[in-house]
C-alpha cells in the first residue's frame, strides 16, 4: 500500500474515537472439576479494557491471570459449561457480544474479530492444504466465486510475505510466478516452518478483513528473528487496515516495541492500564514494578534475580501512590485499608489523564464508578 493511503488511514483512524472493542466488568468462572461442590474457579473477575482502531493493546500478566480467557470470551470460544459468563459485557462497536446468538456469532468470528494463536505448529489442520484452510475462512464470510476466493487467498498470502522467496526466484517470469503462487495453495502445513505457518495463520485470520485481531501470544513459539518479522508484519497490516490488535504476551520486550497501550493483569483483574511509555517510565502498581524488576539486566550482576514477590512484599511499595492503595490480593490483613464495601473490594481507578490503577475500594473511592478505561492513544511513529 502506498504511503499516501497509509497516511490517509492514519488520519481516519485518529479521528475515530468510538472504541472498537470494549470490555467492561467482565467476569468468567469455571466449574471446579476436582471439587464439584466447591466454589467456582474465577478466571476473570471484573476486567475492563478498550481497544481503539489502529491501536495495539498489549495485555500482559503471568500465566492464568485471565488474558486468554478475556480474548476467548470476546469470540464466545469459552466452552459453556464448564465456563460461565458471570457478569459484564464485551461490545464490538457498541454491539454486545456475550449474548449474541450462535448464528450471529459465526459471522463475528473470523469475519469481524479474528484470532491467531501461540502454537503455529499445531494450529493448522494437518490434513487440509493451506489453500483449503484459507479458502474455508474466506468462503464462510464472503459471497465470492471460487476463482475470486482463490485470488483473495493468494492476495492474503502475498500480504504476509509467503511468496517473497518465490518472487525472487521467478523475478523475470510472471507466468511461472503466478503458477507457483497457485501451487503453494496445495501444500500441506507440515511442509512449512513455524514462522511460515504463523504467517499462514495470519493470512487466514486477515483474509476477511477483520476489524479486531486477537493475537494470543503469536510469537512465543518462534525464534527471535522470526518474532521480529511477524510483529513488523502485524504492525504494517494494522496501519494499512486501521485494525485494532489485542496483543497477549509475556514478553515485555515485545510490549515495549509494539504496544500503544499496556494493560497489566493479575488474578483475573486489571492492575494497571497506561500508555506504553508512561508505564515503562513510571510503573505505579507494585506488581508492574515487580514484573519489570524481574527482567534480568546485563550489567547488574546479582546472585539472585528479583522476583515479583520481592517487590510486592515491600509495604513501602503500596505507599507510592498518594491517596489510593493499589489492590493486591495477597496483602497482609493488617496492611489492608478499610473498605467501603466488602463485597466489591476492587476498583480500576483513574488516577491521571492517561492512567488507571487497580485499587482497593476505600471509603474515599466509594462513590467512584469504574467505567472501562478509554485511552485512545497511539505511540508516535
Amino acid at each position, binding site marked *: 500500500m502506498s504511503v499516501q493511503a497509509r497516511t490517509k488511514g492514519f488520519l481516519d483512524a485518529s479521528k475515530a474515537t468510538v472504541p472498537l472493542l470494549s470490555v467492561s466488568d467482565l467476569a468468567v468462572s469455571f466449574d471446579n472439576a476436582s471439587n464439584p461442590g466447591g466454589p467456582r474457579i474465577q478466571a476473570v473477575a471484573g476486567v475492563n479494557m478498550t481497544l481503539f482502531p489502529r491501536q495495539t493493546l498489549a495485555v500482559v500478566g503471568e500465566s492464568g491471570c485471565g488474558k486468554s480467557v478475556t480474548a476467548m470470551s470476546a469470540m464466545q470460544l469459552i466452552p459453556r459449561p464448564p465456563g460461565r459468563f458471570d457478569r459484564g459485557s464485551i461490545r464490538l462497536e457498541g454491539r454486545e457480544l456475550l449474548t449474541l446468538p*450462535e448464528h450471529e456469532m459465526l459471522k463475528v468470528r473470523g469475519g469481524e474479530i479474528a*484470532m491467531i494463536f501461540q*502454537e503455529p505448529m*499445531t494450529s493448522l489442520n494437518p490434513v487440509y492444504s493451506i489453500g483449503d484452510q484459507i479458502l*474455508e475462512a474466506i468462503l*464462510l464470510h464472503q459471497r465470492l466465486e471460487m476463482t475470486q476466493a482463490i485470488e483473495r487467498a493468494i492476495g492474503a498470502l502475498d500480504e504476509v510475505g509467503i511468496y517473497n522467496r518465490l518472487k525472487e526466484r521467478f523475478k523475470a517470469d510472471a507466468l511461472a510466478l503466478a503458477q507457483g503462487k497457485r501451487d503453494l495453495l496445495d501444500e500441506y502445513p*507440515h511442509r512449512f516452518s513455524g514462522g511460515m505457518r504463523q504467517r499462514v495463520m495470519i493470512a487466514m485470520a486477515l483474509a476477511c478483513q477483520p476489524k479486531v485481531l486477537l493475537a494470543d501470544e503469536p510469537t512465543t513459539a518462534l525464534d527471535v528473528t522470526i518474532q521480529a518479522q511477524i510483529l513488523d508484519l502485524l504492525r504494517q497490516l494494522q496501519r494499512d487496515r486501521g485494525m485494532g490488535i489485542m496483543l497477549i504476551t509475556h514478553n515485555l520486550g515485545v510490549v515495549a516495541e509494539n504496544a500503544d497501550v499496556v494493560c497489566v493483569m493479575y488474578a483475573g483483574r486489571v492492575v494497571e492500564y497506561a500508555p506504553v511509555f508512561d508505564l515503562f517510565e513510571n510503573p505505579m502498581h507494585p506488581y508492574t514494578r515487580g514484573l519489570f524488576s524481574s527482567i534480568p539486566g546485563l550489567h547488574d550482576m546479582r546472585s539472585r534475580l528479583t522476583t515479583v514477590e520481592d517487590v510486592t512484599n515491600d509495604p513501602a511499595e503500596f505507599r507510592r501512590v498518594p491517596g489510593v492503595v493499589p489492590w493486591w490480593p495477597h496483602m497482609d490483613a493488617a496492611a489492608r485499608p478499610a473498605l467501603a464495601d466488602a463485597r466489591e473490594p476492587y476498583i480500576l481507578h483513574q488516577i491521571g489523564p492517561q492512567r488507571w490503577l487497580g485499587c482497593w475500594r476505600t471509603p474515599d473511592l466509594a462513590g467512584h464508578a469504574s467505567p472501562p478505561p478509554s485511552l485512545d492513544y497511539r505511540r508516535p511513529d
Partner: protein
Amino acid sequence: MGTYIARRLLLMIPTLLGITLLVFSLVALAPGGIGAGLQVSGGQMSDTSRVMQMQAYLEDRYGLNDPVIVQYGRWLAQISPLKFGPRFQRSPSGAWVRPPRDLPEPPLQGWFPAASQEAVANAGTAGLAAFDAMKAQDANDRHRALQRDSEASRRAYVGTVRATREALADWARANDRKDLLDAKGAADPARFEGMQAVPGSPSWDALAKAAEAMHVARLQAIERAAAERASFDAQPYPSIGLPLIPGTMWLGPPDLGVAFSRNRPVADLIAEALPVTLLLNLIAFPIIYLIAIPTGVLAAMKRGSWFDSASGAIFLMLWSVPTVLAGVLLIGFVANKQYLGLFPVSGLHDTQAENWTFLPGAGTRGWLMDMVWHVALPVTCLVYGGFAVLSKQCRAAMLDNLSADYVRTAKAKGVPRMEVVIRHVFRNSLLPLITMFVGIFPAMLGGSVIVERIFSVPGMGTLILQAIDLRDREIILANTFMIACVNLLALLLADILYAVADPRVSYE
C-alpha cells in the same frame, strides 16, 4: 509409492513362507501326525488287510511317508504359481487333470529282484497298445477310464507293497530277529538289504508269495500308467496356465489340494463355504460400523452426558457376554417353540425355499425374506459384541482431536459447530480407525467358529473346525494361507490408506 508397494509385496513372500511352515509344523506335531484323521476313517473298516491297503493307498496318495519337511516342500510346490513338469489340463467338469505320478520302487530288491528291464519295457508297450486301441473313443471318456484303471492298479500295487512289508515283519518275528524291526514293529526294508535270503519256512513262503504278487501288480501298474501317460500327452483337454518353458516350467493358479476327509478339492469346499460366511459378515459389519461410529462421535461430542455413559455401559455390557452363552440363550428362548419361537433354530434356508419365488408371494414368504429370517439370530450374535471396541476407539480419537489446536482455529474462523466436528475433527479421527477397518477383511473370510457352530451354518468357521477335528491338513493349510494372504494385503491397504488420508505420510 509404486516402489513401496512392490517392496511390500515381495516381503510378503518370506512372511507367507514363515506362516505356512509354522502351521504345517503344528499340524505335523499334533497327536497322530498329519495322517491321523485318515487313520481314524480307515479304522472303521472290519477287515485288517483292507485297512492296511487303504492306509497304504492314502499314504501313497498324499505322500505321508515322507519326512515333514519334504511334505512341506511338496505343498509349497503345489501352492506356488510357478510349477514344473507338463501343464495341467482342465476337464469339462472343471476338475484339474494332472499327469500320472511315477510309481514307487518295490522294496527288498536283493531278495526278490525287480522285473527285468525287458518286462518293464514290454509293460510300457502294452500300455501304449491299450491306449492305441482306445484311440477311436471320445477323448474325455477314454482319459477318464484310463485314469481310473491306472489309479486302481496303482492302489493295488501299493497295497501289495504294504502286504509284502507286513509279511517281512512276520518273517522277522518268526525268526526272532527283532533287530530288523523298527520301534513300531514294522519291517524296515533297508535293514534287510545285504542279508542272505533264508528260504524254507511257512513265514518265508508267505513272504515269497506276497513279493510275487507285488511284482505282478507292479507290472500291471506300469502298463496302466503308461496308457494314462500316453492319453494325457495326447491332450484330451485344454491345458491351463501360462507356459514358460514348454513341458518343464509354467505359471498356473495355486493348487489348494484335495481335502483328505472329503476327497474333494479344497477350492470347491471353500467356494461353497465362503459365500455363506461372506453373507453373514456383509450384513453384520455394516451394522456394527453404522451404529458404533456415530455413537462414538456423539459420545465424544456430549462427553460426560447421560448418552455418553449409557452407550458406553450398554456396549461394554454386550461386549462382556460370551457369544457361546448369547447364542444358546437366543436359541433357547427366542427360537425355541416352547418360548417365543420367533426365529428358526438353525440353517440358512427353509427346506422348501428353493421352490419359492424370490420376493414374498404365492402364499410363501419368499426366498429373500426366508433368508433374512434365518440369518437374524446368527447376525445378532456376530454384531452385538462388536460395538464396544469400535465406538470407544472412535470416541477416544474424537476426544483427542476435539481439543486440538486446529479445532480452536477452525472455531475462531467462524466454522459452524457441526462442520467443525465433521470436517475437522472426524476427518482427523479417521486415521486411527483405518487400522481397525482393515481388520475386517481377514475376519470376513475367517468366519466365526462359535456362531456358525451354534446355528449350524455351513460357513468357513464350520469348515475349519471340521478340518481341525479330522486333522485335514489340506483344508487347514489352504485356509491359513488364504487368510494370511488377505491379512497381509489388508495391512498393505492400511498403509496405502494412511498415505491417502494423511498428507504427512509418504512412502517416497
